[in-house]
């Protein structure tokens, strides 16, 4: 039940994107930004296509991630909707530093992980699909020389809905241990 609430919250975060977006239909289809990311719950590497809304305060990405079997012996494929909201922006000289937070809803294609469990499981045996997770994140991006560059670097701390539930359930969990670090680059088209 708590995980369902997390996912609903994640969905609600994407709501402002559709409500406040002032783009024509062609604009919806054309990505404003492309990101490439190392680590951070999606896989070894991930590629995202995004749109920015409300004077770039909100952004929404469709992210494809992949972890090849050669790295640690298991293959992970992921498809995510990553929504972020800008908390603070600092402009100094021609540089721009942004702090943002957000949440990704990630679908994983992994061995023995299910959205719908096979028929031999009794109905309700597992109360939630194991392939779907919400991943809260907090991050920062840096775009230098904004007049010339369209390339920004970012880092993010991310965790999982289930990990936060464990934290609130157990006093012995170390909060900082729930988070992982990732970094990447974004290329803005306008």
């Amino acid at each position, binding site marked *: 039940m708590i995980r369902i609430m997390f996912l609903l919250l994640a969905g609600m975060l994407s709501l402002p994107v559709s409500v406040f977006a002032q783009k024509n239909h062609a604009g919806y289809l054309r990505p404003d930004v492309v990101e490439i990311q190392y680590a951070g719950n999606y896989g070894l590497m991930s590629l995202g296509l995004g749109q920015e809304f409300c004077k770039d305060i909100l952004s929404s990405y469709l992210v494809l991630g992949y972890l090849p079997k050669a790295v640690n012996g298991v293959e992970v494929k992921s498809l995510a909707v990553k929504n972020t909201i800008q908390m603070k922006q600092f402009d100094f000289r021609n540089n721009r530093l942004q702090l943002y937070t957000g949440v990704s809803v990630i679908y*994983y294609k992994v061995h*023995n992980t299910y959205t719908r469990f096979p028929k031999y499981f009794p109905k309700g045996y597992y109360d939630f699909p194991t392939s779907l997770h919400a991943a809260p994140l907090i991050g920062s991006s840096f775009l230098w020389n904004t007049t010339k560059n369209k390339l920004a670097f970012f880092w993010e*701390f991310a965790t999982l809905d289930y990990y936060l539930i464990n934290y609130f*359930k157990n006093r012995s969990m170390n909060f900082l241990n729930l988070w992982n670090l990732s970094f990447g680059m974004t290329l803005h088209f306008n």
Partner: protein
Amino acid sequence: MIAVLFSDFLISCTNLFSYSPFDINLKTQHLNANSIESLQSVVVSNNDTIRIAVISDTHNNYDDLEDAITSINRMDDIRFVICCGDITNWGTTDEFRWYKERIEKSNIPVITMIGNHDYLSNGYLVFQRMFGDTSFSFTYAGYNFVFFDDVVWENNNQAPDFAWLQNSLSTTKKNLLFAHIPVWSDQLEGTFAQQMDSIISDNGVIGAIYGHDHSYEHLTRDGTDQYMINDIDDRCFALVALSGSQMTLRILEY
């Protein structure tokens, strides 16, 4: 402040760059083999009464697990701890790590079984890397401890390896069976239960202990005492005493 938080994170974070919760970025550790080696390094008379603590279904109840280990540490006559599986909910590597961090606080060896939840995602592989084989046995103080992986549905609906069980039960030693799924549970219902019942009764098993259904149950099937024990969330564990061919079990709250 952000710099302080960042440096705290770098220091405390055990897994800075995580590729996926379903990745298995850990080295082979053989925790069960190490525990068994540690146990067998101490000479025990076959006439001693052996007391062991059995816990099960720890899932994401890390505080309860930690308290159970603390409580068991205070008892000076327990030789080792057995966990009857379901140490995770989703089979993620982090969950296995969090369990391991708690059992490392035990003063005595801990032997861990796989449960059905631990099979989910890549949990089976994580278990193998962290603990070793999912079915295994060892002898201690004249008893043959047999740990049988009897998970069916999460194991791609495959039959448990009953041939392994048959071969692992000793004809000369007193057998004790540990498994996650009780023989009377829905996963084994039908021919699997019949096979397991038959192997248990034909091989002189003096007692069987299971987890899985999160509550206490005691049945005598074909003359063998069989117990299902509470999950750790009930804040209790089983104290098992072995003396000769007798196994007694009582539930202790902590």
